[in-house]
């Protein structure tokens, strides 16, 4: 088996083919660590099954993590970078609790390997605002009480943010569509819709002034 790159600077020779391989290796690694069998694709370099360093661009900063290739983006963020806003709730893309932005698009980070996220811009809920400087969406969630236990809330905040970036003034039906991938068990949907529409209005005001 070939060795993983020694450090972050070793970008040469990595690229599509390596990432393509990692998709295979990541899935195979879980089995290979037990069964000792991994069949690499032709021409691929092998990473793992042990931990290997990866560089993730998270909330504007490059962060290095040393993870097994099978580790998901969600677990890399949570267990290796202490960015615990995104939650592992269903671990199969059904609940939206792990939603982060990948190059601006909302994705289920439990369904992506950390290695596949290399080279992309990742934004987590922590990158959207802070308790003392909340984003308009975050502030609207608090004001409308669009949360109860709050465990699903980071996922809803990220999905809502992505929705408003595409559609600055969504109708109620469009909000429902935009949040269709997120589950809340305490039952906050109607207040989430209210918060998203409030945030849309709040963001529209300065634009209107400029106009």
């Amino acid at each position, binding site marked *: 088996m070939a060795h993983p790159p020694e450090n972050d600077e070793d970008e040469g020779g990595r690229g599509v083919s390596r990432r393509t391989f990692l998709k295979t290796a990541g899935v195979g690694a879980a089995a290979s660590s037990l069964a000792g069998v991994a069949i690499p694709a032709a021409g691929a370099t092998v990473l793992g099954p042990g931990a290997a360093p990866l560089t993730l661009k998270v909330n504007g900063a490059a962060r290095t993590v040393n993870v097994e290739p099978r580790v998901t983006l969600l677990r890399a963020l949570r267990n290796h970078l202490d*960015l615990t806003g995104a939650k592992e709730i269903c671990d199969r893309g059904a609940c939206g609790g792990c939603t982060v932005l990948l190059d601006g698009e909302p994705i289920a980070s439990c369904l992506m390997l950390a290695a596949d996220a290399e080279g992309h811009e990742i934004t987590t809920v922590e990158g959207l605002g802070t308790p003392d400087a909340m984003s308009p969406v975050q502030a609207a969630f608090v004001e409308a009480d669009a949360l109860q236990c709050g465990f699903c809330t980071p996922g809803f905040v990220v999905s809502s943010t992505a929705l408003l970036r595409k559609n600055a003034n969504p109708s109620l039906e469009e909000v429902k569509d935009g949040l269709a991938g997120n589950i809340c068990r305490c039952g906050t949907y109607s207040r989430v*819709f209210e918060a998203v529409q409030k945030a849309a209005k709040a963001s529209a005001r300065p634009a209107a002034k400029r106009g």
Partner: protein
Amino acid sequence: MAQEQKPPEVPTVTYTVKAGHASNPQTMEVHAAQGDLKPWDLDSKLRVVKGRQPRLDGKYKVTGRAKYTFDISMPGMLWGRMVRSAVPAGQILKIDTSKAEALPGVKAVWTSDARTVRFAGQDVAAVAAVSPEVAEDAARLVQVTYDEASFVTDLEKAMADDAPLVYEPDKIPGPKDIPRKGNVLGPKPPGRGGSRGDVDKGFADAAVTIQQTYSVPTHTHSPLETHGVIAKWEGDQLTVWASTQGVFTVRDGMAEALGIDRKNVNVITEHMGGGFGSKLAPSASGSAFAVVACKLAKQAGAPVKLMLDRHEEHLCTGNAPSALMTVKIGAARDGSFTAVHYRSFGSAGIAGGAGTGGPAGSLHGKNPNLKIEEHDVFTNAGPAAPLRAPGHPQGAFALESAVDEVADRLGLDPLEVRRKNEASPVRLIQYDVGAKAIGWERRNKKPGEGAGPRKRGIGMANGNWYVIARGSGVGAEVRIHRDGSVEYFSGAQDIGTGFRTAMAMVVAEELGLKPTDVKPNVGDSRWPEGPGSGGSNTTNSVAPAVRLAAHDARMKLFALAAPGLGAKAEDLDAADGKIFVAASPGKSVAFKQTAAKMSGEVIAAVAERKKQFETYRQDLAGCQFAEVEVDTQTGVVRVIKVVAVNDCGFPINLLTTESQIIGAMIQGVSWALWENRVLDRNVGTMVNPNLESYKVLSSKDMFEAVPIVTEIANAGNNTSAAGIGEPCIVPTLGAVANAVFNASGARVRTLPITPDRVLAALAEARRS
């Protein structure tokens, strides 16, 4: 529903209170413990309480900074993982952990002493390893050999004479004096409300009698944060971070299970991702995972984090029992009931407690003749746990569907039939409020009379709950610091209800501050004792203690302000950050300026609640109205609107109270239309242990939710608060089912109301 305790005998003081609803005030006397305060009542001028305060922890939750148990990590921490039985019944012959132990990175292994398996998902073994991935590998390497036995997972099959026995007859859980046969225990003596009169005579007197059977499947709680803990030992001292509804329950449970003193156990729950009743046990109803985590941590000499996964959460952390309910109602021509016979069978899996008779015992109080019979049926499935008003949504669905059927038979307005039998003055007010909000007059006079294939209709149903409070043994502490900052301490946990914010509002009310001026400290067993969050009792048990502590601090501060204001402390009041002479508010001094006069660094006031007072009413009334659209070609039901009208005493924070009511309506609609735990009858395992085929309501299914609080000066404690988390889910299922009938003429008696059942009921309606 726990924590009802007989109040200890304490010296009392009598207060005269203007209680009840503003439209119909009742003067009553309450007996408070000496030193306790007069309840806030209809005459109280409240500045903060009953307002709308966004939750104080909101900014941490929306930015991902709130640390739940699931989010906590610490240096050297190991990851625990349970191994669960793959078979539903039998004996464990061998647990071979040798391969798991040999895996690099595995630091501790635990195996269960129990050898009898009664459900798929029972605790068998556990591992702790250096990463979650290695722990998962190790768990898969544990080899368990079973001698499998026959089993039964289906409620009705378990009732058969020849069904495989879940327990040997002498091992069935439950009181020995209750009849038992096969897997069936009962009839059990009725709970609250009970039986009364003579139903045989009542049915003989009836002009019409209906009898129908209704059924509800098992639901799982499915909190989004799964059950889990982090256990850390420092010498004899154990700290447990727990996703729990009862930090003190976990403290006591760990101490007992591990044979250590309670004072050596500290439990912390700063933020908690939902429980709905499943997190009231020290570990969980069907797993001892928290105790196992403590043992693994001890064995490994390192902190262990053990969170269950979604699959486990469905199997062993509790569920709401299934129910098969037969309701017989006799009525006179005018709709007054002459008798109600309520008989239910239900399965809480391997546990008891499947009763659903609560609503029958409490609703329609003018009915003179009532008989309730409840039975537990044991099946090879994970044990139930209380789920949001245990048994009540199910029981109310059956009872309130039957009431609707009586009205239909008599050709009467279903709301009028309920008025006829109503004993609660509060619900009589709610009928008018709810009917107006939904536009009751818009309903079909003849079910299904709307034009076209997509038909709309409106239905309603009642619900009930109880004022449950821990009257004593609940404390709170309020501190005012020299710099004027204020904080309070309560060991009780905020499970997402907004408890921590509500308590800050109570402190702010007493001290004349804004809620944002008060720092909450909750969810830590080192702080004053509070109840487990069950029975809708947290706010109304803790708020009175918080108010007492805040009042004590207030009087200490007033004593510092009084000389400068030329008045006596008892003549002062506080508002807007100022302390002033009540009779001449112009004479005032700033709160902060007064705090700076204290002799030390802090004024600390600790208070303990001594007893619950008499209450305006012991029941909490509620009713709901639903509007639905039924596609009579496909059978698909869409909920358009639900109006909930509920009594919760005085709502401390109207904003978060409404959120709880909205959430209950959502969970209720979810049960009515989708949720259904499916066990494979051939292999005994769960078919849908996830969040996509265990379908819960999501954005696209969302309806217009209208929460209406009927404010009642309850007088049961010094804040007049009661509970809200549970009562507001009780009526929803029945309201939706009755609306489906009004829309389409389809009477669906089995939940969830799926398209196939709607089409079958429509065919049935056409035949008759």
